[in-house]
């Protein structure tokens, strides 16, 4: 699915990622953990092509294609989805309209007809119920006046509707209480079908109790310093990130 090979990236001239390599196979769930400032969010942003993140070396192949050469929307259409750490508000643009436009773009891309408005509204309502987001949020402006938890659930709603093949969750758990976390995890787990892959970026082990990863990687100072199974997350929880400083040095 995803092959990252010696990827280096900088923000405002400051190197953040340093020759990072990572391969995610079809249907796998990988977690990236690490202290603040280790480059976790940078990785998510580089993979989706956000402005201001400069790739200084390395390659990324997505299903065999050169991901870094693609524009932001083309990566999305190819199946890469980012659940934002800080979802942005777009005043006046209703959530429903936004979702339909995005889903239509995706369908057009894969040669399908756009959905009829009636069918789409039905689907959107059902899906939002699944993640316990009141359908009234569909009528409101995109993230406009949503609470932190509602914004995060709205991200998952988009993910469910767009059915991407690679889902990147950027600190989706931060700022959520345990109930909200469970709802989101259920949404994510429901999408695991053996083909779809996940890259879960998190600071805390807690999320991984609910979304159980196949592999856990520890990121520090722009490099993966340790990889292991799901037990690595528990180990981190016990030891904290302090020991990493020695590992990096």
């Amino acid at each position, binding site marked *: 699915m995803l092959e990252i090979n010696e990827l280096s990236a900088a923000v405002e001239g400051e190197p953040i990622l340093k020759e990072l390599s990572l391969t995610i196979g079809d249907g796998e769930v990988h977690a990236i953990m690490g202290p603040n400032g280790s480059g976790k969010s940078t990785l998510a942003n580089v993979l989706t092509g956000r402005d*201001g993140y400069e790739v200084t070396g390395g390659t990324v192949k997505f299903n065999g294609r050169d991901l870094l050469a693609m524009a932001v929307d083309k990566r999305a259409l190819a199946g890469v989805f980012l659940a934002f750490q800080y979802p*942005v508000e777009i005043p006046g643009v209703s959530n429903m309209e936004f979702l339909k436009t*995005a889903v239509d773009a995706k369908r057009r891309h894969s040669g399908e007809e756009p959905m009829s408005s009636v069918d789409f509204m039905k689907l959107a309502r059902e899906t939002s119920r699944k993640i316990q987001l009141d359908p009234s949020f569909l009528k409101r402006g995109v993230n406009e006046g949503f609470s932190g938890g509602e914004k995060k659930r709205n991200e998952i709603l988009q993910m469910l509707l767009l059915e991407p093949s690679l889902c990147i969750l950027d600190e989706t758990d931060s700022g959520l209480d345990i109930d909200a976390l469970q709802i989101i995890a259920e949404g994510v787990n429901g999408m695991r079908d053996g083909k779809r892959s996940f890259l879960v970026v998190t600071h805390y082990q807690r999320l991984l109790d609910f979304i159980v990863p196949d592999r856990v990687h520890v990121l520090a100072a722009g490099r993966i310093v340790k990889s292991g199974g799901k037990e690595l997350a528990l180990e981190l929880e016990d030891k904290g990130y302090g020991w990493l400083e020695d590992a990096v040095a």
Partner: protein
Amino acid sequence: MSEQVENLIRKDYAAGFQSAIESDTLPPGLNEDVVRFISAKKEEPEWMLEWRLKAYRAWREMVTPTWAHVHYPEIDFDSISYYSAPKSMEDRPKSLDEVDPELLETYAKLGIPLHEQEALAGVAVDAVFDSVSVVTTFRKKLFEAGVIFCSISEALREYPELVKKHLGTVVPQRDNFFAALNSAVFSDGSFVYIPKGVKCPMELSTYFRINELNTGQFERTLIVAEEGAEVSYLEGCTAPMRDENQLHAAVVELVAMDNAKIKYSTVQNWYPGDKDGKGGIYNFVTKRGMAHRNAHISWTQVETGSAVTWKYPSCILKGDNSVGEFYSVALTNNWQQADTGTKMIHLGKNTRSTIIAKGISAGHSQSAYRGLVRINPGAEGARNYTQCDSLLIGDQCGAHTFPYIESRNNSAVIEHEATTSRVSDEQMFLCQQRGLDAEKAVSMIVNGFCREVFRELPMEFAVEAGKLLEVSLEGSVG
């Protein structure tokens, strides 16, 4: 990202074709004889000629206003032709079958079918081509309801007393430079009369088109809603692409008697000039409504065209409990300049006004909101709420807000808010990450920004306005 946004704005003007129609055009220049010629050509009554001459004499003493935040070379009023009519209109067609097919073709190209069977359901159209009204649809059906909807020339012949009673009562001849000019030389426009207690059975619409070179268009519209009457009216405007600037100086007067309701919507898409600022229409318009007791006047405008716009649709809230509204979207791109807004003059008790103005500037354009809220001493309990928001696309354009608030009654409550922002990188990234291309993303964000105004437009036109915005923004992102 902003570079991307900038490159999105660049697209051809879709209504920019010219029509090969033989015209009867007066040579350029303005003097009393021209005024007499126009009046005679239209077979107007003597009082109307005097009315025009009075305006002309007043105009000669006036100077062009300079306070607006717009810049353009001085206009040579003697280089403009003040009358142009398609030749085939000489023998005024009695029905659509007699209208020059080329003319009908022109309107069809613009998406304004004049054949009633093809027309938008429930919308009656009056088409004004250069200086004259060419056709008005659905007249019979309206007539049955007691509604008069015809060209103002025709109204002057058929209903002179009605016109005489109201013409110039809201915008007097010497109101301002361009209104005086219009009063002297206006050639046509629409007249609407809704009798007491009648709700107009369909949307009324006028479509204005400037075709002839070096012609000014000076249309005059008068809408009278008698006690308890209601009407919704829409005007649309286009012009061919030409390198020369053309002048359009219209006057619109609305009279809403007690308990009457007038909703006036405009989709203005005059030729804005090319991407280097060459050509385009100078749009200097005076629009004002008089609201009597409990009357309700609502202006909605979507302004995407014209090289220079100078326009302040206003309400005089004379009667107690009358309501005035102004909803505006003004989009400028390339080298366009717009200075637009409204005046709400509160005279009566418990009068209420709402102003929602959205300005979008892209390219090298300048967009200004200029508004006046005046509460006179007698306006006990008056209320105003104003919100003006500006959206900037690119760093070469400007967005300005000049609100004047004058309150002389302490029981009045006035609230004014203004913000300026730009299409943020984060918003663009979110949309693009969800698979929308840059152009679609900008257009969606801009449409969201304008939502509160679009919602006021009649349904069919809200869709059109959204599309128009999309087209006007094309080329602003790459």
